[in-house]
C-alpha cells in the first residue's frame, strides 16, 4: 500500500507539473496583456513597463514559468504590488492579492457544497438504484427509472430558480442560500446550503440511480452470485456481500471524478444561488482576464481530480478483493 501511494503521488506531481506548464503556456501565449489591464486608463508607456516588470511578465514565457514554479517553494516578490509568500501560486493583478489566499477563502464554501450534495446524491442515488435493481421490472423499478430520466434531463439553472421561487419566496420554508462557516454555526451552515444541496443532488442523484441499477442488474446475473445463492446463502447476504461490492467499483470511480469536478467549481450552481465559491471565482476571473487566478483554479481542479483518482484506486482495493494494489 505504501509503495502504491508513493508511486501514485509521484505520478500525480508529474501530471500536475505538465498541466501547469501547458495551462501557463496557453494562458500567457494568448494576446491579452495583464499589465494593460492592471495599469489603468491613464497609463503611460513608462508606467506600463514598470507594471510589466513588477508582475514579472517582461520575461520570456519559459522564464516566467520558472519564476512561477519557484514561487511555489520559496515565495515571490511582485515589487510595489506586494509579496506572495510560499506556497505562491501567483498574484492576481485584478484583486491585488496572492492567488492562493483568494482560493483558500472560497474553498470552504465549495467543499461544503460538494460534500454536502455528495452525501445527498449518494444516499438517494445509490438507494434508488438498489431498489430498482432488486425490484427489476416491477413498479418500483419503473418509478425510479422514469424519475431518474426526468431528473437527469433537468438543468440547475432551471430547477434552481424554480426551487428558490417556491421554497424561499412563495412558501418560505427554506432559507435564502448563504454560507456560514461550519465551525461558526453548524445549523446556519446546513440551513443556508440545504437548497443548493438538494438542487445539485437532484440532477446527480438521477445519474447514480441509473448507474447503480445497471451495475447491480449486471452483477446480480453473474455466475458467482448465482453460485452463492445456490449454496444456500440468504438473498440479503448475497446482495450485500457479493453483488453490491462487485457493482460499486465503477460507481466509486465515477464518484471520485464527479466530486473532484464539484470541488473544481460548481459554476452554475454557485451563480444561480449567488454563492461565492471557487466556481464564481473562476467565472469572474475568466471575465476579467485574470490569468493568474484562472491558472490557480485550473490547478486546483486538476489537483482535485488527481488526488481523488488516487483515493478511488485505494478504495477500489478495499471494496473489491479481486483488485490488489501493486
Amino acid at each position: 500500500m505504501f509503495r502504491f501511494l508513493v508511486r501514485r503521488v509521484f505520478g500525480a506531481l508529474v501530471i500536475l507539473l505538465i498541466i501547469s506548464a501547458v495551462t501557463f503556456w496557453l494562458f500567457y501565449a494568448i494576446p491579452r496583456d495583464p499589465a494593460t489591464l492592471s495599469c489603468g486608463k491613464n497609463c503611460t508607456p513608462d508606467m506600463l513597463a514598470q507594471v510589466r516588470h513588477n508582475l514579472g511578465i517582461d520575461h520570456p514565457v519559459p522564464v516566467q514559468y520558472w519564476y512561477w514554479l519557484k514561487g511555489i517553494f520559496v515565495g515571490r516578490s511582485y515589487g510595489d504590488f506586494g509579496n506572495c509568500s510560499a506556497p505562491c501560486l501567483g498574484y492576481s493583478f485584478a484583486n491585488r492579492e496572492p492567488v492562493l489566499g483568494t482560493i483558500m477563502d472560497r474553498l470552504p464554501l465549495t467543499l461544503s457544497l460538494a460534500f454536502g450534495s455528495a452525501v445527498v446524491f449518494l444516499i438517494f442515488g445509490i438507494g434508488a438504484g438498489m431498489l430498482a435493481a432488486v425490484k427489476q421490472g416491477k413498479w418500483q423499478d419503473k418509478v425510479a427509472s422514469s424519475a431518474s430520466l426526468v431528473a437527469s434531463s433537468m438543468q440547475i439553472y432551471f430547477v434552481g430558480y424554480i426551487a428558490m421561487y417556491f421554497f424561499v419566496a412563495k412558501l418560505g420554508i427554506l432559507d435564502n442560500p448563504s454560507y456560514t462557516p461550519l465551525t461558526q454555526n453548524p445549523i446556519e451552515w446546513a440551513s443556508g446550503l440545504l437548497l443548493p444541496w438538494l438542487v445539485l443532488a437532484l440532477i446527480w442523484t438521477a445519474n447514480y440511480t441509473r448507474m447503480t441499477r445497471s451495475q447491480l442488474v449486471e452483477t446480480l446475473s453473474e455466475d458467482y452470485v448465482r453460485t452463492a445463492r445456490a449454496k444456500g446463502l440468504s438473498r440479503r447476504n448475497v446482495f450485500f456481500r457479493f453483488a453490491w461490492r462487485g457493482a460499486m467499483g465503477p460507481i466509486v470511480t465515477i464518484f471520485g471524478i464527479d466530486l473532484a469536478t464539484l470541488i473544481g467549481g460548481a459554476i452554475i450552481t454557485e451563480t444561480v444561488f449567488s454563492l461565492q465559491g471557487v466556481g464564481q471565482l473562476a467565472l469572474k476571473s475568466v471575465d476579467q482576464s485574470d490569468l493568474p487566478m484562472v491558472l490557480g483554479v485550473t490547478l486546483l481542479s486538476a489537483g482535485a481530480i488527481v488526488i481523488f483518482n488516487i483515493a478511488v484506486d485505494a478504495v477500489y482495493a478495499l471494496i473489491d478483493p479481486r483488485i490488489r494494489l501493486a
Partner: protein
Amino acid sequence: MSFSRRNFLIATGVAAASTTVLSACSSGSDSKGSSKVPSVSGAKTMNIPVGTKADSTGPAPEVTGAVKGGTVYSLDQFDMDHLDPAQIYVSTEGAITRPILRGLTGYKVDDKGGATLVGDVATDAGTMKDGGKTWSFTIKDGIKWEDGTDLSMDDVRHTFERLFAPFVTEGPRYVQQWLVGGDKYKGPYDGKKLSSIEISGKTITFTLTEARTDFNYTLGMPGYGLVNKKNDTKEKYDKRPYALGPYKIDSRSIGKSMTYVRNEHWDPATDSIRNAYPDKYIFQFGFQPVASTDRYIADKGNDQYAMSIFNEVAAERTAQVLTNASLKKRVLTQVDTVTYYWPINMTRIKDLKVRQAINWAWPHQQLQTIRGGASTSELASTILSPVTPGYKDFDLYGVTTKPGGDPAKAKALLKEAGKVGQKLVIAYQQSDNAVKQAVAIKNALEAAGFQVVNQQVDKTTFYTQIGKIDNGYDLFAAGWSPDWPNGYSVFFPCWSGKNIGDGRSNYAQLNDPSVNKAIDAAAKIADVEEANKAWGAIDKQIMELAPVVPDYHSIRNWMYGSKIGNVVYDAGNTCVALCKLYVKK
C-alpha cells in the same frame, strides 16, 4: 465620466457628480409618483447651488423618523475595483466610499430631493480669487482619522500631491492638469513638494494655470477624497483606505464581501453631509441582477434590510416590479445624467453626409425595446442629458418623428455623397444585450445602403481598443455623464480637439476649430446662466457635424428591502445615498 472597462456592462455605474436631482426622481414610498412612468424629458433640471458656511456646519439635518442601530446589507453583482480615492472615477465606488471617505467639499442631500455643494472637511465650499485662478479652503477643527489622530494639513497637501504618483492611473485628472507645475511634478514620494499648493495654518491654497470658477465642484468628486499620509501604503491603499467618515472598514474579502463598522472618532458636529444611523454595513457581492431582484421581491430574512448600489431591477423583472403597487413602493426611480451614444470615427468617416445618414438610419426604438422598454431609458437626440444644466432641446435627425429610423432619407444622403455601399466597421462589447443591439443596428444601417461589419471586442479591453487613435473602427458604443454640474465636464473631455490621443475620451476624434474655440470660450464664462446657454449651443453645433449618434438617456430603478428607511438619491454620486439610510425598527 467615462465608463470603466468593466462597468460599461452595468452601464449605470458611470456618473460621478450629477447635476441634478429631479422631479422625476421618485421613491416608491411616494405614492403620488408611483403611478407614473418617469421620463427624462419630463424631468426638471436643477442646478446644485453652492451652500453657505452655515450649510457646511454639522451635524447633518436629522431624517424624520430615523432611528439609530441595525445592520444594512447590500446585494450587488460586483465588488469595487478601487477604494483609494485617487483611483475612484466610477459612481458606485464613490457611493460606497461616501461613509468612510471625506473630501474638501461634498454634496449635501436634502429631504426634498435636492443637493447643495458644501464644505465637507472644509468650513465652506471655498474662496476664489483672481477670477478662479486661486482657491483656498480652511479645514474644520475636530476632524479625526479612524485611529483618533487629527487630520493634519500635511495629510491634505499629501492627498493632492500623491495624485501625481505613477500608480494613480484611474481617477480624474482635472486637478493634476490645472495645478501650476503639475505637468512636471512626479508626486511626493521623492520628498519634493508642489509649489502651487500652499499651506498656511489650517488653510490650503491652490494656484491654477487657468481660471476655474467651478474648482470647488471639481473637488467634490470622490476622486479627491483625503488620504492619511502616515498610513499611505501607495498601491496597497486601494485595498484598505483609512477612514475619516462615520464608518471604517472592518473586514474585506475582495469580490465577496466588505463590512463597515462605526468609526468612533468621527464627530457628527464636523459633518453636515452624513447621518450615520446603522451600526454596520455588510456589502455582499456575487448577485446577478435577477437574483437580487428576486430576493427583494421575496423580502425574507436579512434581505428585508438590504439595498443595492450597483444592481438595479433586472430587465427581466422590470414589468413585474413596476406594475405591482406593493413592490413599486420599494423602488427608487431616478433619471440619470448619462447619455449613451455611438461616436463616429471622424478620421475614417470624413463625409458629413455619411455621418448624417448614420444618424437618420439609427433604429432608436428597436434598441430601446431590447434594453427593456421606456421604463428604463428614453431616446436621445442630444449629447447633454435633458436633466443637465445647459441642455437645449433639439432633434436634428428625426429621433422623435421617426424613432425607428428613416432608411429612405439616409439612403438619399448616401446617394448625394456618392457613398452607397459605404462599409462601416462597428465595435461593441461581448455581452448578450450588446449582440442583440448590434444585429438591430446592422439591419437598420444595411437597409439604408451601408455595408456593415460587426466586430465583438473583449470587454476587458474595449475602452483601451476604442481609445486608440488608430483603432480601425468606424462606430462604437460609449457614454458620458458630467463630472460636476456644467457642460465643461462633458464637452472638454469628449469633444475638444485638445483631448485627442491614445486613452483619451474624445473617442470620435472630433477636432473642429470652431467647436474647440466655442468650448474654450464657454469655459471662461463665469455667469452660470450664460455659460449654460453656451453649452447648449455647443451641443447643437457638434450635432450639426454629426460626429456621434446619441442613443439614449437612462432611467434607473433600485429596489430595496421593506425594513430600510429613507432610500434617497445622492446627486453627488448618482447612486443611493448610503449615509441617509436607516434601519426600521
